[in-house]
């Protein structure tokens, strides 16, 4: 391989870069305003909040779980399985955002960032693949539990319709968010591949 140092263009460019560095060393560049704006404490607070807010889901869902168990007279096993599932969703969401931490991506190199994005995309697809059958089964189980616990047809119908509407709305929102995230991840992966080609 030819020695790169022999290349005149690169030699000249190195001299020009030294010139630029010398010129910049004489300049202040940084000032109080720009430093203060960059070191705004809210940035760090916001990061902490973003990181931990996902885990608040199981806490928020406690009243719903109590409602299932006490008012609708559903079995303890069903209530526990539902709660464990909610905790798993919260944990995996937190884990996913932890992996996708913008600062970690920025302080790593682009190839590693690409690997992480690919991993998250596959992880999302697998998670959806397991979630959909589970939710269908859960809903059937929910209906049977309701039927066994409530002889009153009006209560049964009310709870089932409520659950069905909630399930459809929640499921649609979840699916929309999932598809949007997958699309964004695909675009980012494609961009990084183009940049590093």
């Amino acid at each position, binding site marked *: 391989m030819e020695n790169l140092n022999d290349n005149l*263009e690169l030699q000249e460019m190195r001299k020009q870069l030294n*010139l*630029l560095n010398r010129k*910049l060393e004489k300049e202040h560049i*940084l000032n109080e305003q720009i430093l203060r*704006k960059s070191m705004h404490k809210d940035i760090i607070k916001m990061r902490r909040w973003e990181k931990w807010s996902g885990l608040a889901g199981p806490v928020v869902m406690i009243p719903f779980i109590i409602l299932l168990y006490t008012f609708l007279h559903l079995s303890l096993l069903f209530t526990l399985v539902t709660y464990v599932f909610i905790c798993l969703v919260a944990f995996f969401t937190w884990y996913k955002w932890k992996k996708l931490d913008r600062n970690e991506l920025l*302080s790593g190199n682009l190839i590693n960032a690409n690997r992480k994005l690919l991993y998250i995309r596959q992880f999302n697809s697998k998670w959806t693949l397991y979630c959909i059958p589970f939710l269908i089964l859960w809903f059937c189980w929910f209906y049977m539990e309701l039927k066994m616990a409530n002889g009153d047809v009006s209560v049964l119908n009310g709870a089932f319709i409520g659950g069905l509407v909630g399930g459809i709305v929640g499921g649609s929102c979840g699916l929309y968010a999932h598809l949007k995230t997958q699309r964004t991840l695909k675009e980012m992966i494609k961009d990084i591949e183009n940049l*590093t080609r």
Partner: protein
Amino acid sequence: MEQEFTATVRQYKSTIYTVCYMFSKDNDEVSDLFQEVLINLWKGFAGFQGKSNISTWIWRIAFNTCITQQRKGKRHEAFSLSTDINLFTDEDEDTRQIQMLYQRIHSLGPFDRAIVLLWLEGMPYDEIGDIVGITAKNVSVRLVRIREELKKMSHRKA
């Protein structure tokens, strides 16, 4: 921590400015990118904990910020930097030389821009590879390709 951060960015201000300059089209964009790099450095400063060399970390954040910002294409209101120079419009001999460097580097793709800039700074291949995420062998292969591209460019100009 704030004092430590200020001292660090003061020490590496030229490095950050050079990267931002090579990824910008005008002085406003340089200020915008410079501020974005500082924000990202500050966000990661507490978690840095000396996992790698500080200069490697700064180069990585600066490159990744400039590349991702270019992808997003968004610009927000930025404070002006304290500098009397405008490397895009000044016409003295030194600036003309720097503009030649800018034109050569800016004509390359963003990834190659990063590699050539690091090589010009005198960094060894393995360190360049560590920053951009490829092997030292790949760095040398890419540099050969970059050199050929630069040669073609100067032939076209001649």
